[in-house]
């Protein structure tokens, strides 16, 4: 899911009493190396640190059938050492980037990122590590490293999906909305069988196809001298071969054409949950902003329609939320309501449908829309208070819009949403006859008869 969050300009006026500017933006400069690597720099001298963040324009979207989970497994391989940096973790730990999530990577449906926050004077070492795995991963790759990470990733799936309440429903969502051979099936994490089937040849082929300067953007945010940063980036990345012209995945979005009903047994859930899911939009598509506001009006807070009706008035739910998840190959809009003890999914569904019917018919009030817009823009103002957050946001805007300086336009995009657009969104994004309805039911024998 694309984060809605963003930043604010940091006008750090030493000794000044003036309050900070309220319109967020992230100042930056950029250049592109001859090999195609786009580089974005943003100075922030609050603390003596820099964060280096690379987005590769590859994710689950680029996987082949039979290789679910592969983009993420590949991400793990990028930490297993490269030709000149056999143990990047060891190097990072020695310069103090060993704690608190300072260095990590993540994979989602459409992109993969790698990042580290290091002391300002260690910028060259961060660039050395990133350039080496961009250019020299394969010479020291071996079967043993792959076997280990296949097992580690399998355990990641067990820990983060299988053993979390409602984790299995998420897999069911992916498999229903994106049936095989769509590359999103089994979500980003993939099936254990297919994770275990990944071969060294798969890793090599994926690297050659997607891991190159031309298919990446490099962002540096923090306490650095731009001239020095440019010189160092050129030194470490300038002689890497550019790689093939990147191919963007182009898979049509499968569309639901009816109401699909599924019961999902969940051995680690003790309370039933209703999920209603519709086909959704792509990031920065014209309908996205209104869809986001709609999700807030419906289920984004205590004042939302669903919370008021299901949690406060009817008291049949213990929690509810709505999310507009935009994805590169088409996303999904999701409503999730967890029962209150003793209540059923059927009760929840009846009330959710009543809320939706009313919203489709009468639309939201102007006050509701205004409140939701403030919530979204407020999130943009505060959420990239961190240099690591700003770096990721610069890369996100670059990837999706081509414009690293998109933040003010993003704010404007949400501020411009009208009540009637949200009303339209309720009608067009959430059709009553084309959706997935999941009834997640406790499956553990221990749960039977034990509900309050």
């Amino acid at each position, binding site marked *: 899911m694309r984060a809605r969050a963003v930043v604010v300009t940091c006008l750090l006026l030493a000794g000044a009493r003036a309050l900070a500017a309220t319109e967020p933006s992230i100042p930056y400069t950029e250049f592109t190396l001859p090999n195609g690597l786009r580089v974005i720099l943003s100075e922030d001298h609050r603390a003596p640190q820099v964060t280096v963040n690379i987005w590769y324009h590859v994710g689950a979207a680029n996987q082949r059938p039979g290789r679910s989970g592969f983009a993420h497994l590949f991400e793990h391989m990028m930490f297993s050492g490269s030709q000149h940096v056999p143990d990047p973790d060891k190097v990072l730990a020695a310069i103090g980037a060993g704690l608190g999530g300072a260095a990590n990577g993540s994979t989602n449906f459409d992109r993969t990122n790698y990042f580290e926050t290091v002391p300002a*004077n260690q910028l060259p070492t961060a660039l050395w590590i990133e350039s080496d795995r961009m250019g020299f991963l394969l010479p020291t790759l071996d079967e043993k490293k792959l076997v280990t990470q296949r097992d580690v990733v399998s355990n990641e799936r067990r820990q983060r999906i299988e053993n979390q309440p409602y984790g299995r429903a998420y897999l069911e969502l992916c498999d229903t909305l994106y049936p095989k051979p769509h590359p999103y099936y089994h979500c980003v994490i993939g099936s254990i069988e297919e994770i275990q089937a990944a071969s060294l040849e798969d890793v090599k082929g994926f690297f050659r196809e997607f891991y190159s300067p031309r298919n990446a953007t490099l962002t540096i945010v923090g*306490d650095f001298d731009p001239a020095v940063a440019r010189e160092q980036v050129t030194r470490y990345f300038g002689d890497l071969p550019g790689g093939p012209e990147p191919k963007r995945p182009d898979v049509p979005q499968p569309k639901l054409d009816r109401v699909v009903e599924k019961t999902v047994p969940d051995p680690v859930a003790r309370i039933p949950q209703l999920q209603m899911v519709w086909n959704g939009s792509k990031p920065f598509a014209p309908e996205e902003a209104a869809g986001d506001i709609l999700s807030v009006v419906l289920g984004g807070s205590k004042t939302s329609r669903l919370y008021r009706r299901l949690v406060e008035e009817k008291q049949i739910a213990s929690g509810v939320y709505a999310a507009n998840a935009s994805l590169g190959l088409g996303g999904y809009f999701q409503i999730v309501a967890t029962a209150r003890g003793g209540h059923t999914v059927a009760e929840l569904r009846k009330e959710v449908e009543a809320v939706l019917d009313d919203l489709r018919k009468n639309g939201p009030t102007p006050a509701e829309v205004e409140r939701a817009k403030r919530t979204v823009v407020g999130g943009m103002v505060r959420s990239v208070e961190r240099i690591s957050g700003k770096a990721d946001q610069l890369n996100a805007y670059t990837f999706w819009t081509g414009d690293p300086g998109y933040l003010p336009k993003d704010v404007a995009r949400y501020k411009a949403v009208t009540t009637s657009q949200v009303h339209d969104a309720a009608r067009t994004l959430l059709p009553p006859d084309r959706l997935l309805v999941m009834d997640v039911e406790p499956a553990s024998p221990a749960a039977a008869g*034990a509900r309050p």
Partner: protein
Amino acid sequence: MSARRLSTVGLLLVALGCASSKPAQPAVAAAPPPPPDAWRDTQPAALAAVPPFRAPVPVQRSLPNRLTVLLRENHAVPVVVVELAIKTGVDGDPPDRAGLADFVAASIDEGTRTRSSQQLAEQLEDLAAVLGVSPGLDGIRLHLNCLSDTLEPALDLLADVALNPAFRPADVERVRGITLTGLEQRRGNPGALASDEVARLLYGSKHPWGQPAGGTVDSVKAIRRQDLMRFHDTYFRPNNALLSVSGDFEPEKILALLSERFGAWRPKSVPPSRLPPFPKDAPRTVITVDMPDSTQSQLALVTRTLSATNPDALALSTANVALGGLFTSRLNQQLREVRGWTYGMFSSVGFNKRTGVFQVRGSVVAQHTVDSLKDIEAELKRYATGDITDSELQHAKEGILQSLPQALETNDAVASTFVTLSNIGRPLDWYATLPGRLGALGREEVARVSRAYLDPGKLPVVVVGPKKDQQGLAELHLGSVVDRTAEAKGLAARPAPPSAPAAR
């Protein structure tokens, strides 16, 4: 999104040497010219040294009613964070009211004398302000994050919630129903079940901290509206509270703004807490909870250590980072990178005013539950010897120091950190002075403290996972194996509860 490692977990590094060595090149007949990339073999030198990070230290003030105010100005973003901390939390729960502090926290923002739950939520959202209330073992925090141009109306709402909560019966019953649902949910969640067993082992079944998080079904049903009001009246007092402010405020105005809203809050003497003593060391046990359908086992080995104000605390933190807190610590390396049995296995330490906790925690694939415990036991032997190398120590110190700018980057984190320091009895300049103290810490000192407080060979063990995968557990000789499945899952004989709590 899937990540290479959970970002909440401490990370990186093995400390077996300094320079990284290249794999040997195959021999060739004629000496080739050096490869064009040979310069990449060497880690780059650092750039010129930069001035060290200065951790924020608050200015301390107090209002006439003895409410302490901590102020830290920061104009980086147009945001102000105000955390109102009450210095009594779960430690204020009476013996038959487990979950009371949690209940107060869950219901205090559900309406005030002049605002309904909905009105309060609407007004906060109209300001794009976020108010969160979180209960802890030693306090309850009301955490407000607002935009600086709406600080005044946002402060009005924070003060109203803190000082004038209504605890209307309908709101209380709604919160009760949601709370009971949450307790039921925890009975199926391996991580939550393990945490409750850990708390009981650490603090004992008579201690408020040893109760299941959020209380029990019986105790939550027993909590009356009067209990909530009494807790509030007793502990929500300016002399038992702290206001911690970080952000984009005007320093010449902020005290007046706070005085207008909190100055009339009346002090009242707060009863001293009467907590039972922590349990004495018992013979080692292995607690098991059967989760037949789980694909992993949650493992925990735990013990109490020392309080935050103990002079040995920093050395203990450093020892833990070196031995089990980093991604490349041997514990994680062995269980994850050598065996492939887990997504992560780490040890951690934490401190409060009264004691501290050392814990080894992680999830392993179910069929290697017993093998994993065997490996963990072997790796933990180093903790008891304090056998830490110079480079391990150096990397631990560097990791702690360099994590500070990120840990203290946001106003949210800074305001909360000041409260934590105050709650656990550490000086407010703890982080500003940390580099000096950490630099003076020697390997012998760290080894001594590790030996004194970390003897994992005695630690009780918690295993939450499929019983069918625990064959050979007793043969590890980690202590007597006690099956607490029935108690942990609330299946012990008890009449079936009514479907909804009676109105009170």
